[in-house]
């Protein structure tokens, strides 16, 4: 009995180390990212490379905010992602409900094709439209075009979720004389909360990370964070410390969200979520 127990323990320990090797590229990458962001230029240019410097350059982070208007861009990102996500939920959750109950296969098909289409192909016509409407220079073009990403993903996840929630309660309520809206608002919606959380998280992440819409539609004042960090690369003398610090600032909110909402993200992505956009 005892040899068998230790055998199992060794097995588990062995598997642990194999898993550690498997994820080591991820760990090394993020450790190196943090290291780059905390070193002065001298240390970043050193060979062989230095992992932990003697002098830690916290000033890299201060520099990002001082020299690049990053506070404004952070705020822009929050506005664009926030508005595009909230609008998508308001529109998309009822739509997912309706499509699931109607079994509207064609509508579901349009949503799926929309999710497979490259974001760039929406960009040419919408760019011209925004120009014509004189909206360029405001945040509206970006909020509107981010709906291309957020609405399909919310609708898609909600269709899947409402298909699994029981119809019996809804039918009972409607026999009791509740209107369609009351049935949705008071019976279907409360049950669907976990699905809505998944849709919300994925919409936030994909909108926050979006880059292609911003490089075309953003002006100097309306950049979102991914565009801002990219512009640091192209328009300045590249200094690695502040650049890595900026990259970390851009992606940190998403990484924190991933850590805390791992279960929801896994559920959403395995429900067949393509990136979209």
């Amino acid at each position, binding site marked *: 009995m005892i040899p068998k127990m230790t055998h199992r323990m060794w097995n588990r320990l062995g598997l642990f180390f194999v898993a550690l090797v498997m994820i080591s590229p991820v760990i090394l990458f993020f450790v190196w990212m943090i290291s780059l962001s905390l070193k002065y230029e001298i240390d970043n240019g050193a060979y062989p490379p230095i992992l932990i410097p003697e002098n830690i350059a916290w000033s890299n982070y201060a520099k990002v905010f001082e020299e690049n208007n990053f506070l404004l861009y952070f705020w822009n990102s929050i506005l664009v992602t926030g508005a595009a996500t909230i609008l998508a939920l308001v529109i998309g959750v009822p*739509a997912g409900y309706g499509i699931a109950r109607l079994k509207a296969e064609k509508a579901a098909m349009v949503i799926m094709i929309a999710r497979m289409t490259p974001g760039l192909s929406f960009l040419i016509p919408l760019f011209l439209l925004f120009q014509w409407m004189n909206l360029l220079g405001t945040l509206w073009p970006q909020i509107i075009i981010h709906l291309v990403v957020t609405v399909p993903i919310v609708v898609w996840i909600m269709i899947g979720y409402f298909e699994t929630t029981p119809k019996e309660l809804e039918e009972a309520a409607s026999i009791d*004389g509740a209107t369609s809206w009351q049935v949705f608002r008071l019976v279907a919606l409360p049950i669907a909360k976990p699905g809505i959380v998944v849709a919300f998280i994925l919409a936030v992440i994909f909108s926050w990370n979006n880059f292609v819409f911003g490089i075309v539609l953003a002006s100097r004042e309306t950049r979102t964070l991914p565009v801002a960090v*990219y512009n640091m690369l192209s328009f300045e003398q590249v200094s690695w410390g502040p650049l890595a610090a900026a990259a970390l600032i851009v992606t940190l909110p998403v990484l924190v969200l991933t850590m805390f909402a791992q279960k929801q993200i896994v559920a959403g992505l395995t429900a067949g979520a393509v990136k979209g956009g």
Partner: protein
Amino acid sequence: MASVTIEPTAARDLAAKGGKPQRLAPNYWPFVVPALVVIGAVIVFPWVFTLWMSVNSWTLGQEQTFAGLDNYIRLAGDMRFWESMWHTLVYTALSVIAPLILGTLAALIFDGEFPLRGFLRGVFVMPMMATPVAIALVWTMMFHPQLGVLNYLLSLVGIGAQEWIYNQSTVIPALVLVETWQWTPLIMLIVLGGLAAVPREPYESAEIDGANAWQKFRYLTLPMIAPFLMIGVIIRSIDAVKSFDIIYAMTQGGPGTASETINIYLYNTAFSYYDIGYGSAMAVVFFFVIIALSFVLMMVRARTNWSDMEER
């Protein structure tokens, strides 16, 4: 009447007031209409408009003229377009195969039991959700031929310095490395879902028959997770064909045009040269390439499911 909470009984009272309780046929269309309007405006309208633009000749700032199929004919003879098609094909094939193999391996590992499993899985999933541009910039620094940490790590194991994204012949594999690093976890998650549904009994009888680990994987696990692998291939192919952020942020299609995929060429045509008509034609072709690709993949998927059913 301020905020009324209607419970089933309350609803019955409401109905009673209005005479005999009658069942309303639920009308679901009002729920869908707002989304239809938005999708019509930001998704369907652009499709139609792009189609219209593609039969016009129009560079921003100049006259717009009807051109019929001229743009498409020009596309057929455009070597740079065919080259970008080829780059897209190579990039996509590698970006599907590498994560598929590594992701399956990772899933087999994470299907086991070991300490800190949930936490390590969480770490592994992080690249997938990280902002691609931010990731790309850090990889660019790591790929630096003189100061990059990757060449240093290679030198530790006795491999000479590489030029990574700075050389025409290694740029696509280097980009695929980043893509693989980012998206292997997705395959792992999908395959893990498949492994969770695999029954135990066949393995027990296989063990009695003296099958080794590879045989068990090849003849038991692989057929059972095949449908999940197919889903992984479909999702990964569509994502890889569309890949833009990583390529644009790291190489902008360079050096030269060595890593210019259709998506990058499309971007350059429309937003660097402002050749709207030609860019639209490219977008239309690209759109149909992706739709065709997903139909082919779905047909293959339907077939694999079918043959699975026959075997059982």
